[in-house]
């Protein structure tokens, strides 16, 4: 009889995550990544139900603690939490130069005193989640820390690629843009290389970290070389707010050399998909006709983000196996 991918029991090698937290892709094994993606696959269908809610996390409290502005990620987490019936609390704290580690620790300990089950943290300092992980009993989910990692973004990107290409192994993925300031890049490189993809990174030499090759990627400043025969083209935002000084002459110049246009895409495979973690700068890293074109999966990424975050929340809600009962 004919079998679809969902027909047979998925041969998931592991059935739980080892850590109580999701701090970064670097801590995950390929099997754990597959478990998250398979769980997200099951979660995805919930969005198409008349009642988009399941009772799995009833009675669990999740704090969304955001020290940096974020619309997409915070909204996505909040929707994911609500669809799992968790109680959610949003705390947005504007960062100021005096907010340092100590204040973060104090904030976290005060929150902990109110017994949340999970804390979703976005912070401008790399390593902020690791600090919280050490001092908090709650599960910590990294929603972006400084220029370090943004694991759920990489997971939703991988989910979106797998949904279209049915695999990650052996795909050529070209990542083009601001390679210096991007935590999305780091998490994506870690994940995609773990899963066997051939990752190319491309950007102006001024936005290329000197040691990027040690991550096992091919680095080039030639867009044509990066795009040639690519299965996936992922564009990164030019993060104007993180740039001080002249990294390139002008935005127009950047677009002329690195911007993704339909003409440049011709070198990629005919079934190439175009991705962007958002928010997009149209006419800077991506031309409008590409962003809105038939090969663009940018809005799929947003939709899949909810399912992937539901999977992470669900898998971490059980706690780690070695964790001591309170």
């Amino acid at each position: 009889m004919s079998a679809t991918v969902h027909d047979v029991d998925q041969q998931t090698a592991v059935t739980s995550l080892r850590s109580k937290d999701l701090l970064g892709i670097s801590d995950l094994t390929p099997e754990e990544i597959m478990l998250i993606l398979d769980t997200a696959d099951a979660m995805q269908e919930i969005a198409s139900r008349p009642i988009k809610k399941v009772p799995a996390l009833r009675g669990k409290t999740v704090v969304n603690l955001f020290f940096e502005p974020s619309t997409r990620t915070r909204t996505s987490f909040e929707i994911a939490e609500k669809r799992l019936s968790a109680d959610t609390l949003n705390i947005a704290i504007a960062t100021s130069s005096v907010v340092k580690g100590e204040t973060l620790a104090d904030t976290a300990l005060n929150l902990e005193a109110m017994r949340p089950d999970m804390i979703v943290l976005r912070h401008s300092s790399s390593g902020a989640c690791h600090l919280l992980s050490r001092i908090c009993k709650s599960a910590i989910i990294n929603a972006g820390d400084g220029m370090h990692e943004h694991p759920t973004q990489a997971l939703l990107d991988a989910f979106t690629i797998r949904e279209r290409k049915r695999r990650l192994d052996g795909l050529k993925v070209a990542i083009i843009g601001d390679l210096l300031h991007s935590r999305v890049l780091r998490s994506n490189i870690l994940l995609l290389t773990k899963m066997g993809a051939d990752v190319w990174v491309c950007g102006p030499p001024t936005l290329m970290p000197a040691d990027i090759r040690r991550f096992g990627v091919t680095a080039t400043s030639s867009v044509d070389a990066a795009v040639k025969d690519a299965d996936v083209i992922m564009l990164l935002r030019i993060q104007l707010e993180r740039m001080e000084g002249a990294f390139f002459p002008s935005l127009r110049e950047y677009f002329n050399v690195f911007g993704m246009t339909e003409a440049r895409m011709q070198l990629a495979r005919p079934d190439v998909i175009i991705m962007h973690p958002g928010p997009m700068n149209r006419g800077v890293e991506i031309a409008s006709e590409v962003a809105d074109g038939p090969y663009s999966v940018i809005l799929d990424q947003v939709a899949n983000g909810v399912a992937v975050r539901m999977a992470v929340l669900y898998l971490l809600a059980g706690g780690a196996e070695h964790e001591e009962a309170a």
Partner: protein
Amino acid sequence: MPDSKSAVVMDADRIARTLTRIAHEIVERNKGVDDVALIGIRTRGVYIARRLARTLKQITGDEVPTGALDITLYRDDLMRNAVGPQPVIRRTEIPFSIDDKKILLVDDVLYTGRTTRAALDALIDFGRPKGIQLIVLVDRGHRELPIKADYVGKNLPTNPEESVQVRLQETDGNDEVVLQQEEAAI
């Protein structure tokens, strides 16, 4: 792999005849299969539901819509153990509206009734069916909730220490129902 402590209580022929009999009961009770849909509970209920759909097609000539339901997220013991791995979730696939349909919910074994309770809650989130009927291949007793099957393949009196294993071609390579004496440690 039956050993001295297990007994085959239904073989492949018996299972096939039983499902054919249940299919006829479905047609009789619902006066045909208009507005009827089958939903199997993952994992083995799904395959039993598909077999019933094939038999119903042979009897009536009509296709009966068939879906798959994963009840994990509705389990009443899901977060009771604060510590430990979470059960693996699989995809629910109900590619039709259940509104105003007669839903035939299919499971392999009826035991405490807790799975059925979870399935009823899950189904209500998909719409408002005209009614829900329960089909099980084996009813082994020991209910902990007020739930009763409408169609039963075999009533099998058991001890709580025993386990009932339904094996199906699609998942296990052969069709049989085995009653197994569990070791005290389990």
